[in-house]
């Protein structure tokens, strides 16, 4: 690395702040020119969200919309976006971070700007991301923390008061929360040669306890259900920075499948953002095939599960053979299995038997 890590993040911070200020200037000057202010942005309507097979993720199409203060239906969200930009700039310049929920509450008391609920404020934040083409994490706005990371990875903090301080992620046996500090940190070094992503906290703790990080020489990431964007970004950074392969291990049901897919190909909701997806990541289970091969205890697929499977079957992200095959198997057997199902063969079975076999077979593909 040519520059010290915190200088690099400092530069990003300055670019973000400048782009927010630029937005303010644009609007300010429009008003001064006796023009109703407006902002051009890519349309986020469903018909403008397209799957790009090359990038292997959803992207926004070429259609743009003009959010215009002259329009009676636009002026309120427009005003809210200007307020949110100002709020974001305050965060960035004071080197503070906030959560989506806090942004929603911060607008309380701002007469007429107040959001009617958090979905509305989340939506305005997404607008700002689209308008400035930057993820909200750059503005210091994070979701509630719930995912975690563990393994031999040394990071260097860039957050105020911790600049330059280093930490190894094996230091804390519960794993380290993926919050603003971890997200904005620089990755210094690692001895791991792979990343193991786990959907559920119980299994994450089991793997730490069974020293799976040592056994498989892996960094463990806990997504806590559908993976937050900051966690997806970390997975991608680890994959890009050191070329570490990523293996995703979820429940054997349509919801688990999709958790893996969002890490691999991104979500339609974040079609306006790049650098979140890890196309090389692999879903290693629990497959429908595993249910049969390992005779796992199962539950029946509900009508809701079956419907979701049918949706996935036609989703452009699921065209690869392995997905089609596994979806067909789930539909055929009409069963699903959770990660914990392996406990049937003892608590360590998954680490001793299943994962080694699975990793070996996947690596050979």
């Amino acid at each position, binding site marked *: 690395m040519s520059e010290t890590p915190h200088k690099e993040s400092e530069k990003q911070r300055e670019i973000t702040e400048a782009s*927010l*200020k630029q*937005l*303010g*200037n644009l*609007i*300010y000057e429009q*008003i*001064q020119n*006796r023009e*109703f*202010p407006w902002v051009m942005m890519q349309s986020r309507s469903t018909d403008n969200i397209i799957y790009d097979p090359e990038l292997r993720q959803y992207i926004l199409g070429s259609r743009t919309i003009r959010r215009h*203060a*002259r329009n*009676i239906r636009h*002026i*309120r969200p*427009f*005003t809210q976006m*200007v*307020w949110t*930009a*100002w709020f974001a*700039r305050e965060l960035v310049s004071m080197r503070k971070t906030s959560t989506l929920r806090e942004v929603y509450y911060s607008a309380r008391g701002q007469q*007429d*700007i107040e959001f009617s609920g958090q979905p509305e404020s989340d939506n305005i934040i997404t607008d700002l991301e689209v308008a400035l083409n930057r993820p909200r994490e750059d503005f210091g706005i994070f979701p509630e923390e719930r995912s975690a990371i563990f393994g031999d990875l040394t990071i260097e903090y860039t957050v105020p008061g911790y600049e330059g301080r280093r930490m190894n992620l094996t230091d804390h046996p519960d794993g380290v929360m993926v919050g603003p500090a971890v997200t904005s940190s620089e990755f210094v070094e690692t001895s791991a040669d792979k990343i193991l992503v786990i959907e559920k906290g119980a299994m994450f703790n089991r793997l730490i306890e069974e020293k799976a990080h040592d056994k498989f020489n892996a960094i463990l990431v806990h997504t806590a259900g559908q993976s937050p964007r900051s966690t997806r970004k970390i997975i991608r950074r680890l994959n890009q920075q050191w070329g570490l392969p990523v293996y995703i291990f979820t429940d054997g049901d349509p919801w688990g499948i999709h958790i893996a897919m969002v890490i691999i190909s991104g979500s339609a909701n974040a079609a306006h953002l790049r650098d979140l997806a890890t196309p090389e990541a692999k879903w290693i289970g629990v497959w429908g095939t595993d249910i049969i091969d390992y005779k796992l205890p199962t539950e029946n697929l509900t009508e809701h599960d079956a419907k979701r499977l049918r949706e996935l079957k036609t989703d452009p992200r699921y065209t690869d053979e392995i997905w089609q095959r596994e979806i067909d198997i789930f539909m055929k057997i009409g069963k699903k299995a959770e990660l914990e199902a392996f406990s049937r063969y003892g608590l360590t079975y998954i680490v001793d038997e299943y994962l080694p076999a699975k990793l070996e077979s996947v690596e050979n593909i």
Partner: protein
Amino acid sequence: MSPSDFFYRNREIAGFSNPSRAIYAAVRELLENSLDACEAQKALPEIFLRITEVTASEAGSSIYIMRISDNGTGLPPEEIPNCFGKVFYGSKYTLKQARGTFGLGGTITILYGQITTHKPVTITSSTGGEIHEYEMMIDIQNNRPMILRHRVMENKKKWRGTVVELQMEGDYSRIKSRLLDYLKETAIVNPYADLTFVDPAGRLYRYERGTEKMPPLPKAVKPHPHGIDVENFRRLVSVTKEKSMKAFMMEHFQGVGQKTADNFLKAAGISRRAKPKSLKPEDIVTLVRTARQFSDFKRPDPSCLSPMGEELLETGIRKELNLTESDFLQVVTRKPSTYLGFPFIVEAAVATGSSISKQYKSGTTIIRYANRIPLLFDESSGVVWKVVNKNINWSTYKVYSDTPLVIVVHVCSTKIPYKTVGKEYMADQPEVEKEITNAIRTAARSLRIYISRSHRAARERRRLNIFEKFLPKIAEFSTKLSDNEDPPDIAPLLAAVSTTIPDVEEKIKEVSTIVGDAA
């Protein structure tokens, strides 16, 4: 039984059914007498009414002094005792629209005052010469005035008019709000009159004159054969000087010429040379029946009617409902029509706006008149209520249950189709009902335009409010966001959005002209 005696026994027919209604009926009889007296000599009415409580009595009713003065024709001194002291004084052989409900004038009121207080009435009147003052009572059994005192005074100021002062028992407090409604509604249809009322508590109510124009006096016309009844026919026969039935028909009825008279009498089976005086009672019945069905008479002559006219009615409504420029009022006077041989004209008005919602509860308020007399009671039994609530689909006119609306309907006719002897509401004669419906519909068509335009104006105003709300915020936060010192000027932007608004408000004012042309 004398007529006085009859009314003494049946006073509820004339509206004196209880102490509170008695006050209302007395005011109504006296006030309308005064208005007629003023109009007869084309004097702009100036009427002063005062009710004073003398003694409170048990059960809520009290003894009151009621005094009314007008600047009307005044009465020739020799006629005063009979005018006020005898029931059914005078008789009419021609028809014209008149206010008087029963043709009794104030006599019934005096009668009621006398039987409840046993006090005489004082009548002061002058036709411009000396002033005559009578103190008198009515001899009920003999239907005859009893003069207690007669005084003649000098009249230096050339005063002309009549003052009636009497005592009566009544209950003012329970009729107060109705009485005030009555006075207000009277002021609406008499916008050229100046009314003053002082109530028993000493409160002064003024109903000021809004115009000096008076409607033309109705002409007296002969009765139409379709509308004659046996009694009136008999009276005509008793007074006629004509020697033959043909001449009788042509002389005493409207729309009857040589040929019509011949054809009619032939249809009735009565010789045209027959002497009217020698008609047998059954001949009269035959003639009246035939007249009712005979179709070759000309349509009844409406010149005996005196509608308010759109201009006067509008003046009256505007002043008494305190309408402003931005309120809506549409007045419609229909062409004359007839029912059962009686000519009639319907006038209607529809008003809405913020002034209406301040004065009336939300929803529709109906104001009814028959020959310029306000009808206050039994609203839901009358034809106007039926038309408003059954015949007209108000949503067509963008009127909903909470729209503040005042509907005024005036029916004038030589014979108002009252439904009951109480004469408080009109029956649903099909022809009259149809005319009322059409009149209200015509007015409501322009109402619809007004309402949609005011909705648009309200929308525009809301729009402007939104810009006024958010543009300053955009200016404020874009200034902060861009590190500028002063917020940019948003005034030009606000000016740009507000230009459309006065435009719409202008159009609202134009509505009545536009619709007036269309109708």
